[in-house]
């Protein structure tokens, strides 16, 4: 078996370290300070970072490698969530059966949709997947109400059967767990003015993220990955050389659908509720945005894109006028109101505007996404170092 290259190992190691210390890294500001607003190191958001990271990695296997732009990936996410919640309702609160079923169901569902949609390519493929996703959304929202509980969302209740679980005598809703470890368990470490929250659910998500990342690396470097890239480059030529590309694209589609199913299952495992709006086309669009923002076809890009969007959604949307007034209270009244009025458009419920502007800037100036930005900085750094080395060499040459 071919092992992965050193460079890839380094990337994987880097991601593992970041994931391990995320609760520390994401909480740079002391809890009581005004900057704590920008802290992202609380369990719910960290779980979202990891889960959407998995989703974006999976999407990138399809879009980044084969170039097929699916606008319906949220449907697989939703299907995964519903299957997981049903497992919690019927079997037990252990997340393992829930995750297994969500991956299987999402895989089968993507096999069906992929089989039909992959008969076309380009924009027609995108439209087909979009149509399927909207159809699933509409079904979940109204027709399949007995299965999905419609707009209210599927939730666990006290009188679900849960045949494998011990009888519930506490009178409280049971919580999701992994062999007794409760997903919501959080260990808070107080270190001076800082509070760091280490949450079991987050670390489970992070382990799955690393696993997903590793598999994605293997796919990227495999002959199968090479074939997918060939499809992106020139599918017609492949067809002329006598290769049937359909099985390859279908495999990529199903794999990325299973990734989405896993992400959906994890979402339900962290918070046992599945809502239909998870499947709406805006949710599918968000996945596309994440991937493009981070860098299509790169290994690390989609994860960064996912983190970027989720950060804006959860942090910027909570900066309301009161917070803004608090920040600028040192200014004279008139000026304060003007500044708050301007910033008001970009924070709170205006966070979409900020995100939109950032997205435009990145697409215009960094067509390769955040990853291109990083590699440019890296190159610039190298050039500078080379220059420095030269000058230091010059200066250190002994005077004649």
């Amino acid at each position, binding site marked *: 078996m071919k092992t992965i290259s050193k460079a890839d190992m380094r990337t994987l190691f880097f991601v593992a370290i970041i994931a391990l210390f995320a609760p520390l890294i994401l909480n740079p500001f002391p809890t009581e300070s005004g900057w704590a607003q920008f802290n992202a190191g609380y369990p719910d958001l960290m779980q979202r970072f990891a889960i959407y990271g998995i989703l974006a990695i999976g999407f990138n296997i399809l879009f980044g490698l084969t170039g097929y732009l699916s606008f319906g990936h949220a449907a697989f996410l939703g299907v995964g969530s519903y299957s997981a919640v049903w497992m919690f309702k019927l079997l037990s609160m252990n997340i393992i059966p829930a995750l297994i079923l969500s991956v299987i169901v999402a895989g089968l569902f993507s096999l069906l949709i992929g089989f039909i949609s992959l008969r076309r390519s380009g924009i027609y493929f995108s439209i087909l997947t979009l149509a399927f996703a909207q159809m699933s959304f509409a079904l979940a*929202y109204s027709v399949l109400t007995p299965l999905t509980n419609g707009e209210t969302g599927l939730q666990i209740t006290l009188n679900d059967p849960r045949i494998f679980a011990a009888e519930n005598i506490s009178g409280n809703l049971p919580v999701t767990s992994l062999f007794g470890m409760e997903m919501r368990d959080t260990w808070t470490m107080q270190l001076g003015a800082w509070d760091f929250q280490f949450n079991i659910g987050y670390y489970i998500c992070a382990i799955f993220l690393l696993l997903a990342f590793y598999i994605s690396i293997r796919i990227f470097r495999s002959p199968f990955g090479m074939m997918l890239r060939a499809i992106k480059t020139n599918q017609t030529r492949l067809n002329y050389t006598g290769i049937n590309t359909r099985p390859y694209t279908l495999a990529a589609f199903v794999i990325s659908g299973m990734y989405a199913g896993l992400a959906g299952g994890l979402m339900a495992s962290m918070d046992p509720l599945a809502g239909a709006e998870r499947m709406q086309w805006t949710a599918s669009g968000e996945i596309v945005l994440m991937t493009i923002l981070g860098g299509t076809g790169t290994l690390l890009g989609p994860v960064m894109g996912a983190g970027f969007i989720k950060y804006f959604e959860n942090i910027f949307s*909570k900066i309301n006028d009161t917070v803004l007034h608090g920040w600028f209270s040192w200014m004279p009244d008139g000026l304060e109101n003007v500044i708050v009025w301007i910033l008001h458009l970009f924070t709170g419920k205006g966070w979409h505007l900020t995100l939109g502007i950032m997205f435009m800037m990145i697409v215009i100036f960094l067509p390769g996404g955040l990853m291109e930005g990083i590699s440019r900085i890296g190159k610039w750094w190298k050039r500078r170092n080379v220059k420095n080395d030269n000058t230091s060499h010059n200066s250190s040459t002994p005077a004649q």
Partner: protein
Amino acid sequence: MSKFTRRGLIKTGATVGAGLAMPTFITSPLAAYTNAPTGGSVTLGFNVPQSGPYADEGADELRAYKLAVEHLNGGGDGGMMNTFSSKSLTGNGILGKKVEYVTGDTQTKSDAARASAKSMIEKDNAVMITGGSSSGVAIAVQGLCQEAGVIFMAGLTHSNDTTGKDKKANGFRHFFNGYMSAAALAPVLEARYGKDRNAYHLTADYTWGWTQQESIAAATEAKGWNTVNNVLTPLATTDFSSYVAPVLNSGADILVLNHYGGNMINSLTSAVQFGLRDKIVNGKNFEIVVPLYSRLMARGAGENVKGIFGSTNWHWSLSDEGSKAFVKSFGTKYGFPPSQAAHTTYVQTLLYADACERSGTFNPCGVSEALEGFKFDGMGNGPTEYRAEDHQCFKDVLVVKGKENPTSEFDVLEVVEITPRGQVEYPADHPMFAGGALGKCNPGA
């Protein structure tokens, strides 16, 4: 990768080890309940829709919350704190702690609402979550609060399920519900429109719409009406013309709009534009009924609401002391009268604060005990009781009508009848509310 040396490894190991050992002696002792306030302040989470079809209601709820916080902290004129029958609130915060708040946008989506509520609980240490302008959202957030071990004071949620099938021990609702609307409205409709009527229902396709439609259909059928059809409309619909057109040929002579907020404004406007109200079907005038009314909606729909019947939890034109005090302080601060959404959220905040004061703790179990079976007055609805069995408030219900000659843009509804509490009350195990369990209060942590 060749930069790893043994010395480096030992050094790193020692640092990491020391770092891991540190917290064992600086971790604080475990609190008795989730987010027990430690400093001189306590944080409440206001989770309201700031976008989507219920955004108007959300904005008004937020105004009321801010007003309530101001009054609790001793600012303003004290509003309903002066007329409230319980006198434990003194304007000194809650239990001597200054009240602070965080806000979030539910987007009228269960997912987004839960994420927002979760971040309030996990990041901002909110000890109570309140809000919601949609029953679907309210039920989702109520479930979350039950799991997390904080109190949920429901805002505007009118579905029977909130305190029926989906009731939770940590959740409390002051607002009335679909059953109460139907029980109050049916006799009035019978008196105005007669017994022999054919009703066509357009219903918002989620828990609130379903339960309200069920309640209205049951109550009117008991009066001799016939339900011709019930069509479910997605919550995100903005153009209702395709739903209204079939009503014309259905043989119905009454249209019941089980819609709220932006939905109701659009569907009513569309029905009026189709000329439904000028039609004569089966020898009777065609009539439209909007079971759940609010001033914000009536104002949005403008001319179209004139003469249309509905029910409401509270209206600013009420002349009891509590309502007058609230309208006065709200009007002074914002320049216009409050809506029923603002009223219920303001009252809920005060009720929560009062329950904390009376029980002497923020512990959800203590608060819940103080609220269960609590009887109070002076909050604008007359004598009111929080029933212990399902955490639902029981009080009088207002039947209202769109005013024919409004004197101002706020004076759009007139109160036709105040239906007494006895007429809208139901047993806790009524079939429309059955199927759930309250469970036990959960203090979390």
